[in-house]
Structures are given as structure tokens and as C-alpha cells.
């Protein structure tokens, strides 16, 4: 599992990469009330705005951490946005992406480095 400075996590899942946000991010955002997910089949570039999250406080954009194709989105969080608060690293994932260049994820932090960042 890898982590970005934008508080996203990336978990390899067979030939795909699952993306979500960290518990630190959900704590900062507060109660999440709306999640807008990307279109399945869309091609995204690193740093594209792919997910919109609205919490009780503000709107935030989630950026694509890598280049690739969105192959699956988690519709459950669109219907139940608080799931992201309850289980950010598990059931509260956002999308699965097929990386154009899987080595892009190597640049991101491992768990120890991420913990050092947020602690």
C-alpha cells in the first residue's frame, strides 16, 4: 500500500490499483455528505480532479494519483457517503484504476513514511 501527500492511499489489487483517502483525511474533512465519482471507462491523467467530496464543512477534490483508465467505482459511497468516514481504508474506497505505467506508484510513500508525515 502506498500513500500520497494529498492523503490518498493506493492498494494494488491484481492488475488494478484501488484508491481511497486516509483516516487522517477523513478526520480533517469531518462528516462526508456527498461523493461524486468518475465515469467508468474514462481515461485520466495524474493530478486530474477525479472525485469531488463534500463534507459538512467544505468541498474537496481528489486528484488522480496516476495515469490510467477508471475501470470500477464504488457506488456504495455515492449512496452512503458516511461510509468513507466509517471505513476509509476498506469499504470506503473510491475507484479502481488500470495504471498506464504501474511504476508511477513507486514514487509514493510507504506506510511508515506516511505515518511520519501526519503524526
Amino acid at each position, binding site marked *: 500500500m502506498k500513500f500520497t501527500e494529498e492523503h490518498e492511499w493506493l492498494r494494488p489489487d491484481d492488475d488494478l490499483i484501488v484508491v481511497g483517502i486516509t483516516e487522517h483525511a477523513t478526520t480533517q474533512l469531518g*462528516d462526508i*455528505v456527498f461523493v461524486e465519482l468518475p465515469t467508468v471507462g474514462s481515461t485520466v491523467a495524474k493530478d486530474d480532479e477525479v472525485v469531488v467530496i463534500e463534507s459538512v*464543512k467544505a468541498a474537496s477534490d481528489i486528484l488522480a494519483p496516476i495515469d490510467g483508465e477508471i475501470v470500477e467505482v464504488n457506488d456504495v459511497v455515492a449512496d452512503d457517503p458516511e461510509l468513507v468516514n466509517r471505513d476509509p481504508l476498506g469499504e470506503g474506497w473510491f475507484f479502481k484504476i488500470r495504471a498506464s505505467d504501474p511504476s508511477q506508484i513507486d514514487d509514493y510513500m510507504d506506510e511508515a513514511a506516511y505515518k511520519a508525515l501526519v503524526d
Partner: protein
Amino acid sequence: MTGDGLNQTPLNDLHRELGARMVAFAGYEMPLQYAAGVMQEHLHTRTAAGLFDVSHMGQIILRGTDPAATATALEALMPMDLVSLAVGRQRYGFFTNAAGGIEDDLMVANRGDHLFLVVNAARKAEDVARLRSGLPAGVAVEVLEDRALLALQGPSAEAVLAALAPEVARMLFMDVTTVTLAGVECWVSRSGYTGEDGFEISVPGAAAEALARALLTDDAVAPIGLGARDSLRLEAGLCLYGQDIDAGTSPVEAGLTWAIQRARRAGGARAGGFPGADRILRELADGADRRRVGLAPEGRAPMRAGVDLFEGAEGGDAIGSVTSGGFGPSLGAPVAMGYVPAGMARTGTTLMGELRGTRRPVQVAALPFIPANFKR
């Protein structure tokens, strides 16, 4: 004062002890939320009781030799009937300017030998200047810097406060009185900013923490931050000064005509005689060109302050904008308020709000979103 120039309320240490996330608001360091979070705090207030620190608000006493003359003098600054405000009663009102705009909204209480005003924190200095220049020399304007203000709101508020002072159970909405709470003389009104029954308690600053702790010992009471205060007042359809109303908004545009009593309207015993009377009386008769309305966005995406409103799905200029918006935890849906042309203000009208470049439908909705739960 903190290192960054912010004022602190007498409850600052308690907020930190309770795990509050503190933010700067109107020059004060205030709790945005506690560990429970905005959603839980909001729902708790609607189902039990929430304790709010609103000590940033301005507390002002007006005292003249003749209380009736003081009320008459204040009527020159506000389009409210203050002469008929009985001892032990409070009234919502606003200061207006020569253009008929709202300079601040406030509560005025008749406490017998004086009037007690509670004004917005961000407008305190302007309000005091307005009072000092606009009232006769015989009326003393005393700004109370040494008092805190607590709000206890929600369906359990009466039972909680009555456990400390049984007589508060007899108070009705907008009654004011003096009671002893936790051994200290407090000025209590039955009012608030959540749409729920509840009380606002002016307490000497030095005694505020002890009183807050006494209230928090009751299992029904949880501390509530500014985040939930905002969502509660939004669901209740209540204006936030500087956002939903300001110096360029008239009371008729804002839908606050209910606060202008008959005595100050055309044909009333003391008609006009307040700043901006020409415009306000004209708009009372003819209506205003734009109106504040409730807005219910379709779907789950909140439309926040600043979102532009359009008549159709494509083209055209913005016809208005959202002034307050967010998610309404009690409704489980986004809620907003904004200004639209009078011809589009009818409940049920579908407009479009532009979110991130995409127009989404939003319905004009009746205010309040949640019925008020006052003890009348």
C-alpha cells in the same frame, strides 16, 4: 488575546479540554466542532440539548432616566415597535441604514430599568458607534465586556435548566428574566438560533466555566460548535448577518417583514421615523424586486454560499445566488438560502445552481426547512 491577535472567551480552556477544534471567527477563537463532529452535534441538539458558547456576541445595556424614553429613542434606529415591548420580554430586530439596508440584526430585551441588546460579534463596534451617535445624550450605552453568553438549545433544554432553577420552566418563547444558576445571578432569555426551544444565558465571565460544567454534567447536554450552529440555523431558515443579510439587503427582500410591527408601518401610531423608512415602507406596500428564499438542491450535492443560480439549464445570466448552503443533517439532504427575482420566488419553482461548471436543479422551498419547536 492569543498570540495571533484573537480574543478568547471565558470558556477557552474548557473548549480545549473537551477536544474542540478551534478556529478564528469574528475576531475570536471559537470551537468549530468537538470530537463528536458537526453531524452528531447537530442531531444531538435536535433530540436532546446542546450547549453553545456564544460569548463572542456583543452584550450592550441602554439606560436612560426614563425607560419609555429610551425605547422611543431606539425606535429612531430600528423599524421595530420597542415602546410596546413589555418588561420581561425580548424582540428580534435590526438596525437599518438610510438606503433601507440592514446594518445588523439583534435582540432587544426590556429588563425593567434598562434595555439589553445582544448583537453580532462582527458588528459590535459599528453598533456601539451607531448607538452612541444616534441616541440622545441622556441614554448611556454600556458595553459589557465582562460577561459570557451561553446558549442551551434543544427539546431537553427546559428540563436541564429547570434542574438548576425551576422557575425557568414557566418562561415562554422570548421571555427574559433574572435567575440564579449555580449560585450566580444570570440573565436568561427563552430564545436561540437553532429553531429549537432553549435558553440564552448571560453570565458573569468569571462564573461562566462553572456554569457550563454544571450544565454539561447532565447526560442530555453535549457541547456544540459553530459548525452545527450554522447547519441548525440554516435548517431553521434563520439569517446569518454578513451572509444572508447585509447593508445592501432590505428587510423586505430578506423576508423579515414579520419583525416590523404595525406601529411602525404606514398608518401605524409611529409610522416611519427610522433610517431607510422611504424604501422599506414602499417595499412593504409594493414588494421588493428580489426575495430571500429557501432552496432545496436535488440530489445530495450541497450548494454553498456563492453558487450562482440560473433560470434554465443553459445560457442566460445568473438570476441570483446562494447566500448560505450546506448539508442539513436533520433533513438528510442539502439545504440552502439565496436571493432570486420576485417572479421566481414561488415555492416549488425549479431553478438551476451551477456547481463546478455543471448546472443542477434546485427547488425554491418554504422556510424553515425544519418546523420551529418553540414554547409559545
